[in-house]
């Protein structure tokens, strides 16, 4: 491990370091603001370091290339936003707050490791670091029934799916003798007719593990329960950072391990994509819980991403990454609104909580509208360009059936986004809506997210350029 390796690991080290720092600070004296400040600075430093860290392969495990760095930036920025949301959310609660930041930082670290993994071992390690921190985060309000229930569900399912994943890795390893993505590709390329009886079931089991994390059909069933039970900022984290890190890994695995040369594997991906798009959107159709709607919608969004993933090539990969960026922004934005409206005793997750929001808090309502319209893929938002990109990728590959299904699914999806939007503009009822806490930091996050959302929606060139560079190192 050389100095340049250490430098390359800087973004990871900064996160890890700040988590330790928060722990120590908490040991010295509990202070919410200090823990918050330390986490923020750690995340910010990690984000900034991305711009000057040199791209290096650090051991066989981590490939800190432009692609990984791009995701480091994205993940740390998202965690930064989650931390800002969490601050206001936690501030007035009677609970230990410092550990939240420790867990958040550790989970972020796990997601970053996933993004940089070029080896099944680091994949597993990153996954576990992420997961174990998430169990605790989800059930952070341990004295309430819903978070605990959500935590247990997530734990049991995540652990068992990890077992599937491990068994799959073991099969792949047994077949090929390596767990390094690049070498797998190498071996497969050298041997045109490999023995598939171990390899393909292995891949299928790996897909199970990945699919669980990404909430792809049929591994999706945990999603609404966990989204609903977890505190709003944590839900935002689960929806974005956790899935983003995993998708970054999936894309790398897909692009680098040469797995896409097997038609049956592609068929599985196709089935997953179609089922996720349709099931996700249909499940959300008449749902009355906003968090659950967003959960189902995230299933569908992962389905859209699978379409682009399957297309492959530079355009497919760029589409995936751009869509992920857009997905991060709009999902964070949506959960930020949920967070901002949440009261001390419960999150604002009922449809009724949003009735007539426009007449009470017009700006917030407009921001939420923008986020929802972006999720639905309407122009002027990042979500539109994301969807455009995916459709373009599909069209480039001639996958007409897939993008046709995407179009139909997203029209179904539009229905429930509009259901929320409609509620926002209805006359306020007299239902007792939760009295929201004051959260200036969260408002800041919302403002920033909205600006980026529209900026990317109208003038995405810079982001496309960045993605182009990042993808360049992947392929």
């Amino acid at each position, binding site marked *: 491990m050389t100095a340049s390796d250490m430098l390359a690991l800087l973004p990871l080290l900064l996160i890890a370091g700040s988590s330790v720092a928060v722990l120590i600070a908490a040991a010295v004296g509990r202070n919410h603001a200090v823990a918050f400040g330390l986490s923020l600075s750690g995340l910010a430093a990690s984000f900034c370091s991305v711009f000057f860290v040199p791209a290096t392969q650090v051991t066989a495990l981590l490939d800190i290339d432009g692609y990984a760095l791009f995701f480091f930036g994205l993940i740390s920025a998202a965690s930064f936003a989650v931390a800002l949301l969490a601050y206001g959310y936690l501030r007035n609660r009677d609970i230990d707050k410092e550990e939240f930041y420790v867990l958040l930082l550790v989970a972020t670290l796990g997601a970053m490791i996933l993004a940089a993994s070029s080896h099944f071992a680091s994949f597993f390690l990153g996954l576990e670091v992420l997961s174990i921190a998430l169990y605790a985060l989800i059930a952070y309000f341990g004295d309430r029934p819903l978070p605990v229930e959500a935590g*247990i*569900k997530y734990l*049991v*399912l995540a652990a*068992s*799916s990890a077992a*599937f994943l491990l068994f799959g890795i073991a099969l792949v390893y047994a077949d090929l003798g390596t767990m390094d993505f690049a070498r797998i590709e190498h071996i497969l390329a050298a041997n045109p007719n490999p023995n*598939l*009886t171990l390899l*393909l*079931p292995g*891949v*299928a*089991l790996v*897909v*199970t593990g990945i*699919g*669980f994390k990404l909430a792809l*059909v*049929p*591994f999706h*069933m*945990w999603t*609404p*329960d966990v989204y609903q039970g977890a505190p709003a900022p944590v839900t935002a984290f689960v929806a974005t950072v956790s899935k983003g890190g995993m998708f970054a890994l999936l894309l790398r695995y897909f692009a680098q391990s040469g797995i896409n040369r*097997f038609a*049956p*594997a592609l*068929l*599985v991906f196709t*089935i997953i994509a179609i089922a996720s798009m349709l*099931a996700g959107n*249909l*499940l959300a*159709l*008449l749902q009355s819980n906003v968090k659950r709607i967003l959960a189902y919608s995230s299933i569908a969004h992962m389905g859209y991403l699978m379409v682009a993933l399957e297309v492959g090539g530079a355009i497919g990969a760029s589409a995936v990454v751009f869509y992920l960026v857009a997905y991060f922004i709009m999902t964070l934005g949506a959960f930020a609104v949920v967070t901002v409206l949440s009261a001390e005793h419960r999150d604002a997750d009922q449809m009724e909580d949003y009735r007539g929001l426009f007449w009470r808090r017009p700006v917030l309502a407009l921001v939420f509208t923008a986020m929802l319209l972006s999720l639905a893929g309407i122009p002027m938002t990042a979500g539109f360009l994301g969807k455009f990109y995916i459709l373009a990728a599909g069209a480039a590959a001639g996958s007409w059936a897939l993008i046709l299904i995407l179009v139909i699914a997203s029209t*179904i999806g539009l*229905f429930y986004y509009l259901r929320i939007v409609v509620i926002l503009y209805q006359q306020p009822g007299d239902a007792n809506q939760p009295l929201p806490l004051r959260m200036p930091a969260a408002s800041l996050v919302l403002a920033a997210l909205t600006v980026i959302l529209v900026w990317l929606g109208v003038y995405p060139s810079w982001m496309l350029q960045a993605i182009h560079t990042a993808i360049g190192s992947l392929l």
Partner: protein
Amino acid sequence: MLGLLWLIPAIPFASALALAVLRFPRKVVAWIAVSSIAASSIISLLVTFSFLHAPPAGNAYTEVLWTWMRVGDFRPEIAFYLDPLSLIMVVVVAFVSFLIHLYSTEFMAGDDGYSRFFAYMNLFVASMLTLLLANNLLLLYLGWEGVGLCSYLLIGFWYRDPENGLAGRKAFIVTRVGDTAMLIGLFLLFHDLGTLNIQELMQRAPQHWHLGAGAAVAAGLLLLGGAVGKSAQLPLQTWLPDAMAGPTPVSALIHAATMVTAGVYLIARTHVLYSLAPPAQFAVAVVGAATLLIAGFSALTQWDLKRVLAYSTISQIGYMFLALGVGAWPAAILHFMTHAFFKALLFLAAGVVIQALHEEHNIFRMGGLRKKLPVAFWTFLIAGCSLAGLPLITAGAFSKDWILWGAASAANGSMGFWIVALIGILLTSLYTFRMIFLVFFGEMHSEVTKKPGMAMLIPCIVLAFLSIAGGYVKTPFAHFLETALPWNAAAAGAVHISEIGSETVAGLVFLLGLVLAYVLFLRSRSYAASLTDNAAGAALHRFWFSDWGMDWLYDRLLVRPYAWAARIDKGDLIDGFYSGIAELNVLAWRVLGLTESGRLRWYAAGIAAGSIIYIAVVLFL
């Protein structure tokens, strides 16, 4: 002087616009309305003098105002075309309109829609004059629809009674059925001949089409469709009797003197086309002959004074169609003119009677008005005689005898037409005198509550004069029309019958009708009643009374199915398809929602099942 031509329709139009938009006191309204038509009449007279004094080249004058549109090779103009045919029509229309407007100032005096009435009337005159003067079929169509509109508006003028509105709607829709045919005719003409300019059409048609060409026949029949709609001929005649719901001056102007003869004008205007298409021309004659009979029988059975006159109008226009159909062009135009005079007069006099009896329309409740309303009686009598064709004296006799003779001896004449026309004369005479005897003779049944004033009487007297004098111009008339409508009196018709002979027979038939009417409706009414006492007689009476059941037929065949189709699809069945898709989605939501049971082990089973399925897929597919 001819340059003033455009003012003839423009002045009434401007006046209509002013009356519609601005508000004036009643006196001013009347003054504007009447003086605008007067101005048109005077200008039309000036133009006539100028035309006669110094005939323009080719005996026709065209005034182009502007190019309406220029789309590809389609370039209709807003332009007026004056030739002897349109000149005669314009003068008659303008003059009769003037008289009826004058009459209306008093007739409508008590109505709260005074200004609206005159706005519509002026608009009608403007449209009618445009129709007559148009140099292309599109502009003619504009006038054509314009008069239809005004007819609709004026029939439903007393809009508070829904019946009136329904009558107006019926009139508009039925005539529009014909108009649609005409519209298609225009497309055909433009497609084959590349223009809608009437004179160019008349020149090109013989070059492009040989005699009896299918396209020519189709064009002729389609234009005939428009003509039968507007002129209330078979099979589209059903609207005219109902149109009597409008104020009486409207019936006089639109539904007797002017608009309903537009069809006659159209066919005369495009006579070259019909000359090229003998089957179409024969259809015109058949339509005319059939209509004049059917309407004549219906007129016999009506009890409403105005409906009698309406059926009479249909029947008389049938004569004109017959004349056109057999090729006696100028006879049709002459009959148009005399008919305009005497039929307008009949309506105006009827209006006097009706108003005098406090809106009584039933001729069986009238009677003995000879003394109470002398002017009305005498003018009605003169007009009636003219209508029935009192030989030698009345204008109607001249024109009708001409048609009768033409029916036999003109280019396409035949004995059958002559006999039909003769039966028509008997019927006309019969129903005319039935009307006169029932209304003005016998006992009084109702009190006279209102005496007409001068504004109503003067037009009656003038028209009475014209109803007699109008026929004496027959020979110069034919000569004048020569360039526009060739009339070859010596044309070798199918039947050789002398003009004098035909006239004599007609005179005798007229007398027969008069005597029959006297016997049946004045001397022994009981005999007339006994005719309808038996079942067959009553059925026939009902059949004729209901216009040969045509209304009933159309109602069952067309109106009700359409309304039924519209009603069952009111909610738009297509939408059911989309609702079905929505329902399907909701169903899917429900079913999928069952999988989200909240049970941990079920979720785990999902993961296990999923991985097993995918393993199966990769291994076996």
